């Protein structure tokens, strides 16, 4: 028995030994999985055991599948043998279209023609007859028109052949009118129907590809004209898709599609050469192919692309590829360029600076021999590239001030590049802002002057000038520049805001120096620039507050009238505090002078407005003084109607409070959220973070477990953002974090019980026991009380990881909440 035979037999597992029901099942499985050979073997064996019609039919299906498979592989004779086996199963079995197609394809036209000629009484099913006719029709158009003579005169293949052939000739000659006229003579129920559809599609292809595709889609895959249909569809694909699809198409279909797309023959030839190199051709093979076609591709292009291909490979041999493929070895500059390209992915700034400087140096030497402006531009670009690649001078980089630091060198290279290419505005601005960030205003001004000479009305340069003026506290100059910018771009809100902020900052400075008069002047300037209502109101309030500084009784009285009352909104008090902070006035002074009571949120709307105001203060980068934060913390933790906010408002409030580090208020807000929406992980997170602003200190393991349960819920709900935030909030060496392994083994710990968490009130152990534990240490106490060794080991582990104090607190906490069995409970109390 040959190996092949053995293997085949193995697939069905020696079918003659298998019980019929099992073999039936396996045969069906093989048929369903399109394992045709296995299915044939199994059904043949079954048919030997019992002559059943259903098994015969399934065997016929398996034969058809296998024949199709062989046809696909080009094993046509073998496929025909299988079809013949199928036909021999049952004389009543209709001829399969694939069988007929294969007969036609194998030039056994007589057999196919005979089928039709002998079918005078219409024994063949109509559909099958039409399919055979279409196969023959395609062959007639393919040049086998001699067979027409062997068909009856009234056969549609014969009757419609003339217009179909005329249409073919017209199409190939470019005579569209003749094509249309000929197609009009082909009736719908003709063997040439698919041919007519394809020709109509081909005529539409250049102008209406979508309509052409729709026509082609109407043609069946087993039509005699399917190869032409496939070629036409291929020709309609976008170029990048075509390159992939063409690789799997049959050569004739590919050639027809390529011509239809307008591919010249050279393109087809090179595509075939590229295709032969595989899906991911090796760089060296591509370089050789480029060199083979160098006369057409151009020497420069081939050279440049070959260098890119060399750079894409890290092997040291790649440098020799050019020579090995028939080119010249890389020259010194090209070698330097290759080295620099390979450095581009390196994060070492020194290496970047050095490699690109080397390239620039090569060109600088050439410059001395040939004063070419293009060369100068390239030198400038090479000097700039290290900075661009490593973002050495971009924000937030600042000048180190050290002459041997890489940022200083990078800045020098950039400045040097301006002598080669002085028209690059981006480089001026990059250097100006780099120097500004380091308060090196002299350097920034020097470059600004050069830029202003070249682009006096450019917005970017004007804005840089304004920024430098603001940095130097030259507000008058900045205002003048701002006016020029706003003349050009009246809706430039950024410039307006920067100017207002600069005046406000200056007003604060003047006030703290005791120059209220100058502060008022600055505020008036700021007010003249401000367009935002909120800012304008705050400037007015700041101006009014200056009356407290000036000791102006009328002004103070007016303010008092405005703010003194039983029911002043917390949002208004916050606005007052922000104004006081903005001019550097202590909030206590304001409260005393205006005789203001302790504020609180008077209702839900006031609370919501306060939160909105607080949020925008953070967005505007306003710095709240400690006094303002204390005022807010007190106001927001005193019977605050958190429970009246909606879920979205409450979550936003928690975020805002977090940004201002108002942790007590945030904890209250989060607790309100936990009570109303018991399983919302986000409120659990806010409560945890607010309770442990400096990180979890193991005060209460319940909190940790509660957060872990919230993490599980967040994941289960698909709240991935919240889940990630909780993961970040969980302590690194907590039970989840597992520093050095799994959870800390605390015996008898309760399961996670998220919903049972009440407030944080600890029900303590008897004070005597707590005192003893704290005095002698929990480990010793456990030993004295004869606690189980398992517990003592766990406590030692916890002490090792967290320190003795935290471990003691944690265990007391666990014991105190009653959820862990108290190991001291049954022990004799020491005297």
């Amino acid at each position, binding site marked *: 028995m040959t190996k092949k035979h053995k293997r085949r037999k193995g697939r069905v597992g020696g079918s003659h030994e298998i019980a019929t029901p099992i073999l039936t099942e396996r045969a069906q499985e093989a048929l369903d999985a399109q394992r045709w050979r296995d299915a044939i073997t199994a059904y043949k064996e079954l048919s030997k055991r019992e002559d059943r019609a259903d098994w015969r039919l399934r065997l016929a299906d398996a034969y058809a599948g296998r024949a199709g498979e062989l046809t696909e592989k*080009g094993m046509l004779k073998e496929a025909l043998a299988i079809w013949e086996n199928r036909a021999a199963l049952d004389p009543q079995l209709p001829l399969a279209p694939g069988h007929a*197609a294969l007969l*036609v*394809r194998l030039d056994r036209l007589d057999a196919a023609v005979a089928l039709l000629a002998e079918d005078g009484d219409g024994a063949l099913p109509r559909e099958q007859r039409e399919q055979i006719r279409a196969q023959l029709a*395609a*062959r007639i*158009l*393919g*040049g*086998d028109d001699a067979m027409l003579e062997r068909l009856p005169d009234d056969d549609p293949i014969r009757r419609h052949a003339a217009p179909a052939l005329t249409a*073919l*000739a017209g*199409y*190939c000659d*470019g005579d569209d009118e003749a094509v249309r006229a000929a197609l009009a003579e082909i009736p719908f129920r003709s063997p040439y129907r698919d041919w007519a559809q394809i020709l109509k599609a*081909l005529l539409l*292809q*250049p102008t209406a590809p979508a309509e052409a595709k729709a026509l082609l889609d109407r043609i069946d895959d087993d039509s005699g*004209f399917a*190869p*032409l249909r496939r*070629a036409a569809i291929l*020709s309609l694909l*976008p*170029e*990048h898709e075509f*390159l992939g699809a063409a690789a799997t198409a049959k*050569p*004739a*279909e590919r*050639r*027809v599609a390529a*011509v*239809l*797309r*307008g*591919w*010249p023959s*050279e*393109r087809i030839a*090179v*595509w075939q050469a*590229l295709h032969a190199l595989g899906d991911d051709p090796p*760089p060296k093979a*591509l370089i050789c192919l*480029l060199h083979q076609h160098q006369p057409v*591709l151009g020497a*420069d*292009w081939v050279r440049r*692309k070959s260098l*890119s*291909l060399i*750079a*894409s490979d890290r092997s040291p041999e790649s440098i020799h590829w050019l020579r090995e493929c028939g080119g010249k070895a890389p020259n010194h500059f090209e070698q330097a360029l290759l080295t620099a*390209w390979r450095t581009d992915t390196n994060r070492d700034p020194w290496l970047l600076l050095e490699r690109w400087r080397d390239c620039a140096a090569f060109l600088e030497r050439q410059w001395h021999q040939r004063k070419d402006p293009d060369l100068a*531009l*390239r030198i400038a*670009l090479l000097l700039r*590239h290290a900075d661009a690649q490593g973002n050495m001078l971009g924000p937030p980089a600042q000048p180190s001030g050290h002459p041997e630091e890489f940022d200083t060198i990078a800045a020098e290279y950039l400045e040097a590049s301006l002598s080669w290419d002085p028209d*690059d505005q981006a480089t001026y601005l990059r250097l100006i802002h780099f120097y500004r960030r380091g308060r090196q205003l002299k350097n920034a001004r020097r470059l600004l002057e050069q830029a202003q000479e070249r682009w006096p009305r450019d917005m970017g340069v004007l804005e840089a000038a304004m920024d430098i003026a603001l940095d130097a506290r030259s507000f008058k100059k900045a205002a003048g520049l701002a006016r020029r910018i706003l003349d050009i771009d009246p809706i430039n809100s950024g410039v307006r805001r920067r100017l207002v902020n600069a005046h406000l900052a200056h007003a604060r400075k003047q006030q703290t120096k005791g120059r209220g008069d100058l502060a008022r002047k600055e505020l008036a300037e700021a007010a003249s620039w401000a367009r935002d209502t909120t800012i304008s109101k705050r400037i007015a309030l700041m101006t009014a507050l200056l009356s407290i500084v000036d000791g102006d009784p009328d002004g103070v009285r007016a303010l008092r009238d405005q703010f003194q009352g039983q029911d002043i909104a917390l949002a208004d008090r916050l606005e007052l505090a922000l104004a006081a902070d903005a001019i550097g006035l202590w909030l206590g002074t304001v409260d005393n002078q205006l005789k203001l009571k302790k504020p609180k949120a008077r209702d839900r709307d006031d609370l919501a407005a306060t939160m909105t105001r607080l949020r925008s203060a953070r967005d505007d980068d306003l710095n709240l003084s400690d006094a303002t934060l204390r005022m807010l913390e007190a106001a927001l933790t005193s019977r605050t109607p958190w429970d009246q906010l909606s879920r979205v408002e409450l979550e936003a409030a928690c975020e805002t409070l977090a940004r201002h580090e108002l942790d007590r208020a945030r904890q209250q807000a989060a607790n309100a959220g936990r009570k109303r929406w018991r399983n919302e992980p986000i409120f659990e997170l806010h409560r945890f973070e607010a309770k442990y602003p400096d990180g979890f200190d193991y005060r209460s393991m319940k909190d940790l477990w509660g957060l872990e349960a919230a993490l599980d819920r967040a994941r289960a709900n698909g709240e991935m953002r919240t889940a990630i935030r909780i993961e970040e909030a969980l302590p690194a060496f907590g039970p989840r974090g597992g520093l050095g392994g799994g959870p800390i083994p605390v015996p008898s710990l309760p399961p996670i019980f998220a919903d049972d968490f009440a407030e944080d009130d600890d029900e303590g152990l008897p004070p005597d026991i707590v005192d003893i534990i704290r005095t002698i240490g929990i480990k010793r106490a456990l030993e004295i009380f004869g606690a189980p060794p398992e517990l003592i080991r766990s406590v030692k582990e916890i002490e090792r990881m967290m320190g003795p104090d935290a471990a003691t607190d944690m265990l007391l906490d666990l014991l105190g909440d009653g959820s862990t069995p108290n190991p001291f409970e049954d022990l004799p109390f020491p005297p």
Partner: protein
Amino acid sequence: MRDPYLVLGLSTDADDDAVERAYLEAIKRCPPERDATRFSAIRTAYEQLRTRRDRAAFDLFDTTPPAAIDILDKIAPVGAPARPERSLLQTLLRGEP
């Protein structure tokens, strides 16, 4: 990433005006609503070649290996759709591979 010169159908010595013209013609031929991917490629190519400085930078720093489509376009760009010869069509109609 495709070679921007080939996307815009330009020679490597094209100047600013030629780039601008080629870009405008290309987007007229292929507006975004017709083929967004192709339009995006045209736009990217234009950004890479817009100024003399851009072109010099592309020449110095681009290390993208040539795509198959670049090589094909450089050798023989796609022309106007043509009609296959009768013999080629007949090969296909006879079902020959």
